[in-house]
């Protein structure tokens, strides 16, 4: 047997301070309400961060307003562009450091933070940098105006990437921002604040307030914000939609999903299996667009499942900093509890549960890659977003049945189609009620490609020309 020796990425490149303040008006401001942020793979404390209160949020919004009115708003687009290009370059130059820190704070494998998250973060800033001086050509009229101050609340699954998705288009369009990272993954946003300083970005254009739900609520409800952008759970998304009702605040929401990954009998099976694995086990399944429902045509179900199980047995679960790790740690104890609860419900409701033999570390939060077979649309594991490495397998007989089952959910973020027949791809794609459809691939992202959901997966698009719309007064 060929055993891979440990290949840990060095964490020496990351120089963490014992505690962090809030980044307001270009400065780190010490706070009082300190909370620990931990490495979910070891439960080791990484640093303390400040949870911003209402007064802190108010200061941040005021700083953003002043920067908007006095500096960023009046600044020509070509100069805003240069700051964004600077940021993109600095992200590239410091990408190793950012990737290691992301894996430390989030638990995701270094292979992913290094090869997926960070390249996309830099690419996103590059892409939107180029828009800053071309807004009149974006198709939103000859002289589109920014909205003002954007309140942005992001989740813990792709901390830095979600920051980029929020900040890059906002700044390119001429807005200033106050961003709240998730309470379990605040550190890369704070390192990003240092990058803003390094880029000499004018004070107040980007403000980072760390904290939990209360901080987010204070930010979203602050009367001084003109725009709210949120990525996270559908439940919180609805609360935010209620909170901004009747205000002038423009809202975009990127929420949960329960994507169907449809495998037809003529699919390229080996690539489909890779796509299924990537669809649900990428980032421990902490992906809103995860392909969490496998819909496989009955005639090939046995073959596909056998391949899938064989492939799952090859997944390397463990130390996120090991370069050979495929599946890292679950981000938090709370999330682990939710995954366990729903998985237990799957077993209790009679679905068959399977995981490959895999040794999980003793400390930290871990969950083995899991599939449920014999699942029907009525099972909770087929209806509720698990946000973990848990796949529900359902079967279908005809294309119409596949589409019907795929759409039978309040969500509509993404979907997958696997078949070698072109006309069937287009027929299926036309009928799927989902914002992103991956055909013969899955979980691909690009700054030029709009991303966002139908139905309760939210509204508005991030990425591409469409991504500017949420930050312009159109």
């Amino acid at each position, binding site marked *: 047997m060929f055993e891979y020796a440990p290949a840990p990425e060095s964490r020496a490149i990351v120089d963490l301070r014992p505690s962090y303040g809030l980044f307001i008006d270009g400065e780190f401001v010490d706070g009082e309400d300190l909370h620990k942020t931990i490495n979910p793979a070891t439960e080791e404390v990484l640093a303390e961060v400040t949870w911003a209160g209402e007064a802190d949020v108010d200061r941040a919004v005021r700083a953003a307003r002043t920067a908007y009115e006095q500096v960023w708003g009046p600044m020509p687009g070509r100069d805003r562009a240069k700051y964004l290009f600077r940021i993109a370059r600095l992200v590239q130059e410091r990408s190793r450091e950012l990737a290691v820190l992301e894996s430390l704070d989030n638990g995701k494998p270094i292979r992913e933070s290094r090869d997926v998250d960070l390249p996309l973060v830099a690419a996103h800033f590059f892409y939107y940098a180029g828009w800053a001086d071309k807004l009149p050509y974006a198709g939103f*009229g000859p002289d589109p105006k920014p909205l003002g101050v954007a309140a942005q609340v992001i989740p813990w699954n792709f901390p830095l990437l979600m920051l980029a998705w929020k900040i890059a288009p906002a700044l390119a369009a001429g807005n200033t921002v106050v961003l709240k990272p998730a309470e379990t993954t605040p550190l890369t946003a704070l390192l990003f604040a240092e990058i803003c300083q390094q880029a000499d970005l004018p004070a107040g254009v980007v403000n980072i307030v760390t904290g939990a739900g209360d901080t987010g609520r204070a930010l979203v409800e602050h009367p001084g914000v003109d725009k709210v952008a949120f990525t996270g759970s559908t439940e919180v998304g609805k609360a935010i939609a209620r909170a901004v009702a*009747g205000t002038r605040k423009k809202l975009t929401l990127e929420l949960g999903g329960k994507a169907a990954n449809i495998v037809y009998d003529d699919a390229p099976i080996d690539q489909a299996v890779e796509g299924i694995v990537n669809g649900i086990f990428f980032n421990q399944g902490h992906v809103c667009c995860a392909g969490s429902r496998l819909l496989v045509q009955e005639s090939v179900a046995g073959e596909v499942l056998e391949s899938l199980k064989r492939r799952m047995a090859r997944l390397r679960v463990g130390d996120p900093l090991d370069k050979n790790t495929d599946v890292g740690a679950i981000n938090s104890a709370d999330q682990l509890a939710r995954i366990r609860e729903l998985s237990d419900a799957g077993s209790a409701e009679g679905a068959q549960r399977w995981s490959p033999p895999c040794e999980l570390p003793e400390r930290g939060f871990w969950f083995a890659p899991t599939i449920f077979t014999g699942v029907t649309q009525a099972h909770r594991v087929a209806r509720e977003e698990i946000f973990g490495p848990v796949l529900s397998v359902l079967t279908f007989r005809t294309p119409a049945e596949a589409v019907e089952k795929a759409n039978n959910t309040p969500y509509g973020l993404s979907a997958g189609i696997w078949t070698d027949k072109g006309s069937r791809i287009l027929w299926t794609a036309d009928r799927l009620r989902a914002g992103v459809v*991956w055909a*013969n*691939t899955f979980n691909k992202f690009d700054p030029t490609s709009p991303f966002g959901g139908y139905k309760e997966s939210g509204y508005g698009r991030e990425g591409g020309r469409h991504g500017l*719309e949420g930050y312009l007064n159109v």
Partner: protein
Amino acid sequence: MSERVAVRKTYKLFIGGKFPRSESGRSYLVQDSNVSLASRKDARDAVVAARAAAKGWAGATAYNRGQILYRVAEMLEGRREQFVALGVPADEVDAAVDRWVWYAGWSDKLPQVYGGANPVAGPYFNLSAPEPTGVVAAVAPETPALLGLVSVIAPAIVTGNTVVVAASPAAPLAAVTLAEVLATSDLPGGVVNILTGRLSETVPTLAAHMDVNAIDLTGVADAELAAELEVRAAENLKRVLRPAPADHDWHTDPGLTRMTTLLETKTVWHPKGT
């Protein structure tokens, strides 16, 4: 010789291509006529009709939808005098006809203007295209009764949505007469459904309805009611068009937002290989 006794019109609702009375059996006196007073159940029936029509209308070709909208303009032009007789200013009728024509042309152009290929950094075909969001509930502005109504219906349906619209409670006759235009324009039944009566009865039902995908609050003048409706709409994350400012000039270029807010963008990826 005695004067001819006129045949008076009964102004009814427009649901699923038919003209039913309110299931509640109620009507109200407005503009010297009895007009149906729609109930919550009428609103629900209208949503069912709109949902039933959604698949076929969204699946119609853009060319076909454009032709039907243009047909609406033709029919409206032919009934110009009838609307003037109802008190609609002639220039408003003209503007309403022109608006149908303007939107008719968008059916096969908006997907080109609002969608397109995305140059992703990899060997992939990547295309974004707009699709209708589904069933739209809309509140027509109080005034102008005809142009305002057309300005909320046309942008919703041209892209393939179906709509349940609450007509201006104070001036519903133009709405019911427009329904007669729609009914003779090859527009499939259920694509447009028109409710007359009190907003407070029908619109909260529509705003909360879980099978409605978007709500257009254009005609909700009461800010408090608008906020309450938006709160209800959050329950299934309806797409929301907020109320128009009271001084909005309906004769200006409507722009794309009325259409794009009621659209979903679908992006499809596919590898390129041999």
